[in-house]
């Protein structure tokens, strides 16, 4: 069982009062317990079981405008005494920064809604094994599948965030995650792909059979890929890749990148950065949402933000420190976005494939090719050639490149949004990117 609120609150208030006694003018503390139990299967047999029980505490102390922090997994009071003393010592020796402070008092979250983020259900290892058996049977049905690796994880977490301004709150969350990675082989090639499902509630998890079949079919269709020539071509991003475009957007509008001047979206608020029909939301209070939260990692209340309205950037993601620097109020985004998504477009997936006589459908990218300073983008990619709306053949060993400033202006979205991750996008088409191949 994860540690209860009372245990975490006791530890938190111990730290806060000790910090105060030792000279801190302000302090904040997070205590978190997370218990995960995982079972892994490989080729229809048990491969690994893994149980982890992590208890962590981190405290930030302020003396006036000086600040420092420590974290530890050793929560014995003896150890905490030594560490907090060290933290205060370091704080005294760290130069002042005028923007250091706890959030403004009126911004703290006042009510904690039940967002349905915790499922009491406990799934025993033998039940996980039953699920994985079914999954792997479905995944390895086709003889082209030569290796399967599947995994089932139950995670239960609880945390308390407290600070010297009197804020003290926290809540339990749970997640159940199943995944399957399959390898397929033919005379010419060996390919890998995967499928995955993660939910707050066990009963919402995808069916094992479906998940296994999907992993296998997505892998088999990649066999015997070809390399194409270099050209300018319309790119269609599968949903699992399209969400990455949103993640890059989120890093580029984080108040730290903006205040440091290291983002290609600096000074772009109220300007048109996306094509007309694009709307982007960050909605923290979604029931059972994988990114849902009642407050950010500083305790600031989080409201739904319409980040992009008809292509126009409306907000940055603001925390207390960078907000003060930019002369803006925190909008509760310390620690990043919650449930971030593009609103649906108005054409179907099928119509999107038919928009161009020839396009490239990307199912996987590799490499870290997004530069948020310049907006330049260049990654390795795997996918399929689409001609007249039909999947023609698999493609690999190519790169796709462009600049986000142009890419954002050339996005068309399908109407197939689903909430599979914390950050989600419908299938996305971008015109005018360059493919490098042969």
């Amino acid at each position, binding site marked *: 069982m994860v540690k209860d609120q009372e245990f975490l609150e006791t530890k938190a208030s111990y730290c806060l009062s000790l910090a105060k006694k030792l000279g801190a003018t302000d302090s904040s503390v997070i205590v978190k317990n997370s218990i995960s139990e995982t079972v892994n299967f*490989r080729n229809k*047999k*048990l491969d*690994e*079981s*893994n*149980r*982890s*029980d*992590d*208890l962590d505490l981190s405290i930030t102390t302020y003396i006036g405008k000086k600040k*420092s*922090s*420590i*974290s*530890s*997994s*050793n929560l*014995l009071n003896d150890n905490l005494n030594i*560490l907090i003393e*060290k*933290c205060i010592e370091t704080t005294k*020796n*760290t*130069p002042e*920064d005028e923007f250091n402070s706890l959030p403004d008092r009126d911004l703290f979250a006042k009510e904690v809604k039940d967002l349905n983020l915790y499922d009491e259900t406990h799934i025993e*290892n033998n039940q996980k094994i039953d699920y994985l058996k079914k999954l792997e049977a479905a995944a390895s049905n086709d003889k082209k599948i030569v*290796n399967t*690796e599947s995994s089932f994880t139950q995670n239960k977490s609880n945390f308390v965030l407290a600070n010297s301004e009197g804020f003290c709150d926290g809540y339990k969350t749970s997640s159940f995650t199943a995944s399957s990675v399959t*390898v397929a082989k033919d005379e010419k*090639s*060996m390919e*890998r792909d995967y499928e995955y499902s993660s939910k707050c509630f066990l009963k919402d998890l995808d069916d094992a059979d479906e998940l296994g079949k999907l992993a296998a079919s997505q892998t088999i269709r990649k066999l015997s890929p070809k390399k194409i020539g*270099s050209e300018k071509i319309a790119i269609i991003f599968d949903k699992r890749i399209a969400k990455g475009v949103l993640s890059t957007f989120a890093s580029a509008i984080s108040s730290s990148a903006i205040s*440091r*001047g*290291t983002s290609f979206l600096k000074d772009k608020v109220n300007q048109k950065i996306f094509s007309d029909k694009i709307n982007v939301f960050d909605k923290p209070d979604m029931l059972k949402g994988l990114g849902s939260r009642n407050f950010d990692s500083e305790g600031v209340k989080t409201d739904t933000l319409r980040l992009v309205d008809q292509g126009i950037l409306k907000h940055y993601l603001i925390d207390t420190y960078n907000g003060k620097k930019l002369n803006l109020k925190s909008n509760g985004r310390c620690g990043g976005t919650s449930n971030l998504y593009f609103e649906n477009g108005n054409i179907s997936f099928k119509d999107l494939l038919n928009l161009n006589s020839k396009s490239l459908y990307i199912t*996987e990218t*590799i*490499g*870290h*090719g997004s530069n948020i*300073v*310049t907006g*330049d983008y*260049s*990654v*390795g990619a*795997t996918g399929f050639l689409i001609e007249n709306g039909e999947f023609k053949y698999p493609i*690999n*060993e*190519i*790169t*796709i*490149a*462009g600049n986000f400033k142009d890419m954002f202006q050339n996005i068309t979205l399908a109407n197939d949004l689903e909430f599979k991750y914390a950050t989600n996008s419908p299938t996305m088409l971008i015109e005018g990117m*360059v493919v*490098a*191949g*042969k």
Partner: protein
Amino acid sequence: MSNFFEKSDVSRKEAESIISDTLQKCDDGELYLENSKSESILLDDNKIKNSSYNSDLGFGFRAISDEVVAYSHSNEISKNSLKQSSENLKSTLKSVKGTYNHEIPKSNKKYYDNINPIEQKSLNEKIKILNDVNDYLRSKGDKVKQVTANFLGEQKSVEIIRSGGETLSDVRPLVRFNVSVMVEKDGRKETGVYGVGGRQSYDSYLKDENWKSVCDEALRIASVNLESKPAPAGEMKVVLGPGWPAILIHEAVGHGLEGDFNRKKTSAFHNLMGQKVASEGVTIIDDGTIDNRRGSLTIDDEGTPTEKTVLIENGILKNFMQDRLNARLMKTRSTGSGRRENYRHIVLPRMRNTMMLSGKQTQEEMIKAVDKGIFAVSFGGGQVDITSGKFVFNCTEAYEIVNGKIGSPIKGATLIGDGPSILKEVSMVGNDMMMDPGIGTCGKAGQGVPVGVAQPSILINKMTVGGTKL
């Protein structure tokens, strides 16, 4: 050296008996104890943004029977917690039986000193250097718009207790110093990043104002990029500079030669042992025994002394990198490559310092041999798809080559290639092997471990460059 049982309600003797009892019917396993202390001091935007300290303590209990691994970890070293973990392992392995392998090689060699780098330099000294870095770079002209510099230091004590009470231990220092600078000219912004580090004191890298050379290099890269033009797109010849560009070796062949992927036959290399996988003259080793290097280890995280493992010799595939589990199942021996990020993670076969050895040619000869291509000097990161063998890495400093001469700098681009065939495309191997500056972290299955790379300049006949200029 940490005494893990000093403040615990479980004595060393009691712990040993729980370990032996849990592992008696298993093929392998151990209790891994870890106590790490780490610090991070960051200067950013003209200010000390962050000074933080982390102290982490915990154990990971592992039992292996045949192919099945059971693992349980906790950060509470207590009788109750150990017993709970033991029950958890036993329940996973209840139906399998094995014979414990007590054999573990011994060595007295050490590749770094038992020091705590965090305590060797005071906070004020570190803050002073960071402020000096900021002043120094900002004095280089108005074009410098942003400076970030940081210290990362760590001391990690590990102890491995095997069935029967055999105990192995190691204390590992690790430091890193990084500088990132952003420059702006005519509305265009570019960054340059450079760093140094390894398993020694900060002063081994920074004394005599040596930090200035780190700043100069970061600024040089940023300034070069201000003048860069769009990179070409398509297949062409590529000359790689010595040192850090060896992440090509790490991604293209290193991961594919790790034991687990080959036992599972998911690596593109699994059926190529003894065969020619690279051009003649290409020799690649993975070496954990170089003094004070970031990827070096006295013993790996299973207690096996590390070694210098020849992976590819003169073009022929000779060895995979093995931990104990994969070595046993593949009927070979561990190469001392069993590593984990920390006690929260299971052991996997991993790289240490992966190096391509020098050949005979000069970099000049290589450039001359290229009519149209690129010369890549510095890199960001890389990634590989083990199964298809396709790998990428991102240039952060590169130039076009036209008619045997180095031309304009080009924008950062991703290069993509095919692991099993790329080394056959190496047509010249330079005489200028160099180690990287000590900044690499390798990610696998969600675990990051410090690694090193090295190579001489090399000429690759054909690679796809992911630029925007057709």
